[in-house]
């Protein structure tokens, strides 16, 4: 039975999971959830994710939410096929991947997410992007990226000289970020910029990026 992913192709969290599925060459069916009709905030969807957020993965009798938890499940389930994202054969490398997955979750995401919200979501509510929020988070993100710049001057990817789930987790939000005026934060740091160009050109992400057109439809 194929995996079913409930979500939206333009959503960064859904895209995070789809990129992982493509890297693992896993078959899945994308079941669209109508965000603009509020489908994710009502039953029956709420029974799948009580937090009312996409995506949700169904694999037979297993139902999962939280894009990072889903991605980890997919990477483990298909660890013998496709690209190795979790380095399960080396306990040291696997631990490094976990560290940088947590860095994405605890350092990178909280700084980049409000910037994406201000540029992409606030206009939908009839508001202009709040420059104070953007500036504050751009400052935070800059400091995080300084650490990335130093690390990526020593290793090709975040957890080592190998691409992993830690790098993948950054793709979808950063893709939208690069469409904003804050893209300089990435472009001005040569190792970060090279890393970004490398990971965003991977075929698995390219398949997903083409549908990530949030904001363009609004014009």
């Amino acid at each position, binding site marked *: 039975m194929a995996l079913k992913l409930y979500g939206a192709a333009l959503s960064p969290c859904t895209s995070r999971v789809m990129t992982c599925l493509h890297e693992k060459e896993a078959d899945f069916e994308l079941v669209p959830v109508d965000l603009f009709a509020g489908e994710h905030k009502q039953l029956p969807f709420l029974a799948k994710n*009580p*937090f009312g957020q996409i995506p949700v993965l169904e*694999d*037979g*009798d*297993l139902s*999962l*939410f*939280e894009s*990072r*938890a889903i991605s*980890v*499940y997919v990477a*483990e*389930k298909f660890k013998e096929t496709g690209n190795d994202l979790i380095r399960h054969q080396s*306990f*040291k490398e696997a*631990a*490094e991947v*976990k*560290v940088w*997955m*947590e*860095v994405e*979750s*605890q*350092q990178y995401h*909280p700084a980049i997410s409000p910037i994406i919200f201000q540029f992409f979501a606030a206009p939908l509510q009839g508001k202009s992007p709040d420059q104070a929020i953007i500036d504050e988070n751009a400052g935070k993100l800059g400091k*995080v990226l300084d*650490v990335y710049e*130093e*690390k990526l001057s020593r290793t090709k990817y975040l957890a080592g000289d190998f691409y992993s789930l830690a790098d993948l987790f950054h793709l979808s939000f950063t893709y939208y970020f690069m469409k904003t005026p804050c893209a300089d934060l990435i472009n001005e740091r040569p190792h970060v910029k090279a890393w970004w160009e490398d990971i965003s050109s991977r075929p698995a992400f390219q398949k997903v990026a083409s549908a990530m057109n949030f904001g363009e439809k609004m014009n």
Partner: protein
Amino acid sequence: MAAIKVHGSPLSTATQRVLACLYEKGVDFQFVSINMAAGEHKSDNFLALNPFGQVPAFEDGDLKLFESRAITHYVAHEYADKGTQLLIPGSNKEAAVLTLWQEVEAQQFNSPSSTLAWELFYKPFFGTATDAAKVEENETKLGKVLDVYETRLSQSRYLASDYFTLADLYHLPNIQCLLATSAKKLLESRPHVNAWVKEITARPAWSKVLAMQKQ
């Protein structure tokens, strides 16, 4: 000398998360106190352990790690057959339920509870004024998260399973802060959440973590 070293502060919630895990597993470790008031966590020595300049940092032999959730994940797996079982062994599907509730802690619970802990617990401790608007906003957010927990804990004794796991452990430090503030009403007013809070904070390993604050 123990192969495991934890560099941190007993007052830091992230350090407490790691200590709780080590006490649950019953593995020996050496605690290296970092003087945060003196800015030691921003010193070159410490930055070599964690380039983000945050406690805790962790060593197990020549393996160096940071981020409390990555450290605890490593400890729980590496020492799986010692002390308390904190993982869900078995199939990928069974283990995925644990990963799910660990992510819920990180993505849903952590932000509003950390903000409330900062405003209501740490700021008064350091003599800084509380931001009432932030408190109200985050009590509302945390309340919605805890509504989901209330339903979950009416179906399952602990978050990921019918026994205590890493997913529950991750919540201990922020919960302990909130219990010392007016925000404890959010926990106490939800019967299943309240019962769960009382159980997990009564664990002997957690008492050992709290005892370190008195040293």
